[in-house]
């Protein structure tokens, strides 16, 4: 299934979060836009698990959080679970462009050090 179609399916209509996906060879980048509240975090977790697991054709996955204005602990959890799945399959999983307040939640949960950060855009 096309990545964008999958994104739309998992986040659904009327959701307060959308995403843009772009592939470059075996590298996939997902740019999230919106709030990672409880509901959206669950959708994100399902989406990433599907991409990493069932799809499994990408060697390198990057989640861009530059336009995420709010993240709950469940959002951090969703990304951590995705990272776990990626490690199991030896897929590279990185995040980037964390806003300071988003970073603060990662740090408060003691999980920031587990994530590899890709270079931020300007």
């Amino acid at each position, binding site marked *: 299934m096309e990545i964008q179609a999958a994104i739309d399916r998992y986040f659904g209509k009327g959701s307060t979060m959308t995403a843009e996906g772009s592939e470059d060879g075996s590298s996939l980048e997902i740019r999230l836009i919106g709030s990672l509240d409880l509901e959206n975090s669950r959708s994100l977790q399902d989406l990433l698990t599907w991409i990493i697991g069932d799809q499994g054709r990408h060697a390198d996955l990057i989640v861009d959080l530059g336009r995420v204005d709010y993240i709950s602990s469940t959002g951090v959890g969703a990304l951590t679970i995705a990272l776990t799945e990626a490690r199991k399959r030896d897929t590279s999983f990185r995040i980037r462009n964390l806003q300071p307040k988003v970073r603060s939640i990662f740090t*408060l949960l003691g999980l920031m050090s587990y994530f590899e950060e890709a270079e931020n855009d300007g």
Partner: protein
Amino acid sequence: MDSKAPDPTAQHLESRMSMLSLIADLCRIFAQDESEKANIVAIDSIKHSFSASAAALFYINAQQANRMCLAGMDFPISLPEERWRACVDQHAGGSRVSRFGPWAIPGIEKQLPAWISVCLYVSGDEGGYVFLGREAGDWTDIDIASLASIREAIAPIVQVRRERGIEELKRKEAERLLAMNESRLRDLFDGSRDMIYTADAGDVITSVNLSTIKLLGYTSKADLVGKQYSSLAMNPGDRSLFLAKIAANGYADDYEIVLTKKSGQSIFCLETAHALKDASGGIRELQGIVKDITGRIENERKLWKMNLELAEANLNLQKTQALMVQQEKLASIGQLAAGVAHEINNPLGFLMSNNAMLEKYFRKFNAAWLESLAARGATSAKTDDSGRINALLSESEAIFAESRDGFDRISRIVGSLKNFSRLDSGSGFDAFDLNAGIESTLIVAWNEIKYVSEVRKNLGDLPPIRAKGSELNQVILNILVNAAQALADHAKDGKGLIEITTRAEGDNVLLTIRDNGRGVPETIVNKIFDPFFTTKEPGKGTGLGLSISYDIIVNQHGGRLWVESEAGTGTTFFISLPVAGPAKPPAEDKADGGTVE
């Protein structure tokens, strides 16, 4: 009896005045005082106005006791019900004034001849009954009419008084219920174990419950009332988002927000809040409940972390296992090679000596043949037979020479194989001639290299180094094969070039292997020593060769291995090895159960 004849008009007037005055009095009394005391005052007044000898007021009080107050006494008296009923029913029937006598008030022995009585007022189910007695003379019609008119005047007052009393009771009851309710709500508010707060339209806190102070570590409600709520949030922007949600929907459920305690500590909380709107739809007040979810978050966090670490550990375990398996394989291949070489050596030995011997015999045979030809004097005539034999003999020379060459080559290959695997030196460190190792490895790798590349050697003077020769040969082989493959993929006009250089550098020896192949792109040059990293298609290489080489050079021998490459130009591998060998015991001893980093 009075001697002077009374003036009827004046008497009448006086009487009227007196009655009016009494009515006014009674109105005042009954309007103001709802208690039994009113009755006492009233009957005193009535007795006086009517100039009665005795006056009594029979009534039932609020406690349903049958009472009677006697004018002149300060306290009412309780009567047994039948007695009370007997008096009232018998003598004070209804709205009309009754006239009777002689009679005595119960409990008072003195009988009086003339009595009038009437029901003075009705209050709900009960009534107040007046009894007036006269010692001498009789009650006049005027008296009776006066009594009746008093009754008329009093009745509404008493009615109003009663209604007011009822109202008052209701009011008190309502107040009581209200107070009870308020107390209950206050208990709910302050007793709740969750934080409950209210804030105004500007999100300034207007009230908090006790749990709020406890949760946030403040000492009194006053510390928080008047504060901007967002000042309590670790990320004030999160509060703005929350308020926007409430503004849009009127409420927001289960919103996670991190609050900061007075001590500065951050706590995860879950908030549900709603807005009260005013008539124009604007927000009048926010009311919210905030739960401390630190415990739940902690559990979730631990779980995530544990799973992540498990996955990492698992992955490392798999990689280590694969690495070990590969190393085992290589080790056993080396053993196999050495074993094969050893086995071949024997038959090769007698093949070579047989060949040499056969060559010698043929030479002798040739010499004998030439002798016999000369003896027969057949120098000139080249008969068919002798020509054929001569040809065979000279061909045989060439064949023997080729065979000798072949055997020499086999011998060299076997020697290189043995040298390469160096099993004869055991698993320990020995004096190793690096240049010799390079030479024997080249022979082993020659098949891979010969079609794609020239090899240029610049082997300097090296001291023997303390090393495990077979392992170093493995490393050299790996790099040479990689170089050859890089050159093969990158088909140039003509062959590529592999340059091998060695030289002594102080306490170390330096080996460089350079190829002019396609090079390694900058983006992956840091990864080539990672286990399982390969640019080959799946199945065409394990990606372990360089990581094992790295382990051998760096961990086992205490040396350095690094690469310089330029895409399109070529790649150079640098190996630096200490002449004296590794400083501490090699990494292989970790296999006794320590953790592998």
